[in-house]
């Protein structure tokens, strides 16, 4: 049993790594195309049919580009920072059930690497660790703009993590477990958490959704790599695949958080049938699309506005929400 379990886990890890590395690349293609269509442009068109091979061209470019370590940087930290971002993004995926369990050649496969009983806590914790990538990379870069960006990243981090943690407390109180599979079972019996408990679930959902934008550093809260300074924030001194790792980490994070939101609030994969699995993938696709949609529509906020939003608006709402949930459940 031990050997079989080990082999199964290794295979699952490799499959998830491969699929989501590829998806991160294809995600950039989707992002460029959708942003282009929303701005009445065509986006990448020249490499391959409809620019489909643009991802491969970008990959070749990133892999073959010279890896420059500028003089003056703190080299070991500078080198390890992108690895932190990418690896933590994938580590967080260990506790996400991507599909309902299915049978293949009479062998039951659970498409989750490890169904640990602290599932969602582990996911959010590891995703939080991922912020050390931009933070350390920016601080080690010996560049004032990178340093500013790292400082902004830290400020944003302590703001949104509070909201993320508090907003999922109410659903956790309903379910009584941290495992995402238990979340799914609960919602199968009692309906989606979004509609549960007289709107408490809905408020928690909205709060978590807003915090997810900050968590992944997407546009309304795209403050870590600040576009206003024209340069790429913490990534200014990076080149080649080290910069590419930041990118893969960001996009993998987007996909994983797009899985987590439906699993937490929108019924997940339901009863585990093929229809349920497709429904989950549809929800994931919607949330991923919404990330791109928002990027085309909304402007960035200032760091102080984000902190105002998180500390003065969202956190009180989250706390009141928890109290409401507790009172209603008693």
């Amino acid at each position: 049993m031990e050997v079989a379990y080990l082999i199964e886990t290794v295979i699952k890890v490799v499959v998830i790594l491969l699929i989501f590395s590829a998806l991160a690349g294809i995600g950039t293609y989707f992002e460029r195309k959708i942003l282009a269509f929303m701005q009445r442009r065509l986006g990448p068109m020249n490499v391959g049919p409809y620019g489909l091979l643009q991802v491969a061209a970008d990959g070749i470019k990133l892999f073959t580009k010279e890896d420059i370590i500028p003089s003056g940087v703190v080299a070991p930290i500078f080198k390890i920072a992108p690895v932190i971002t990418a690896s933590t993004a994938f580590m967080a995926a260990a506790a996400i059930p991507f599909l309902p369990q299915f049978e293949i050649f009479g062998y039951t496969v659970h498409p989750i690497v490890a169904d640990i009983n602290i599932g969602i806590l582990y996911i959010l914790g590891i995703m939080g660790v991922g912020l050390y990538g931009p933070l350390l990379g920016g601080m080690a870069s010996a560049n004032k703009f990178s340093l500013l960006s790292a400082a902004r990243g830290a400020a944003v981090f302590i703001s949104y993590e509070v909201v993320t943690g508090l907003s999922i407390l109410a659903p956790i109180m309903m379910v009584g477990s941290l495992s995402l599979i238990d979340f799914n079972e609960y919602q199968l019996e009692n309906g989606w958490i979004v509609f549960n408990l007289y709107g408490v679930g809905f408020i928690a959902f909205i709060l978590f959704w807003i915090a997810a934008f900050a968590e992944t550093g997407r546009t309304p809260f795209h403050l870590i790599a600040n576009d206003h300074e024209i340069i790429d924030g913490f990534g200014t001194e990076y080149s080649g695949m080290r910069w590419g790792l930041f990118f893969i980490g960001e996009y993998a994070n987007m996909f994983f958080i797009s899985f987590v939101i439906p699993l937490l609030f929108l019924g997940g994969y339901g009863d585990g049938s093929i229809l349920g699995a497709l429904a989950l993938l549809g929800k994931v696709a919607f949330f991923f699309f919404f990330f791109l949609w928002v990027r085309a529509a909304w402007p960035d906020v200032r760091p102080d506005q984000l902190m105002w939003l998180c500390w003065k608006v969202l956190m009180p709402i989250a706390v009141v929400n928890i109290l409401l949930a507790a009172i209603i459940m008693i």
Partner: protein
Amino acid sequence: MNTQAFNDRNVNDSYYMVDIEEYPTDGWGRFKRVIKRTFRGELFVGLWVVLREMLKFNIHTIQYPLEKMPIGPRYRAVHEMKRLWESDAERCIGCGLCEKICISNCIKMDTKIDENSRKEVSEYTINLGRCIFCGYCAEVCPELAITHGGEYENGSEQREHYIDYNGMLTPLEMMTQGKQQEFEGFGAITPHEDARMKKTPLAY
């Protein structure tokens, strides 16, 4: 001197101040503004606008090397020398006006009397390295002989290489096909030229 007439930019009385709400000064006012902005759904207007444009799929991209915009007739690119429609001979009569008017001194021409005792252009060069494409030569030319073309895809190590006199001349094949384009830019004949024609005053 009274300069009020120059400083007063209100050309008429139809100007009015845009009605802008006062900024809130106290906390309660700011709170009300936040609530109003939160629930007025302005964010969703933005989302709808970009989604609508995506669904309409009215793409404005021109894929340049494959597709090109028509260039305006008044565009002043590298010069062209036109031929007469009747005889396919060069229109240039060697008057030298373009050489005289050229403000960057880039046109150089030489003329001689040919065997029919007509003036003939023996040498005509435009130094495109100096030319500023002002269009004066095309405007001053009495025969509409030198004009500007629309060819903007020039590439060379030096601008002098773009074109020579024979390259500027309309090719004879184009004349036989009747495809020479008349110039509509500076100095060209305007649509109402016939009505504006007057008799030449000879009685000086």
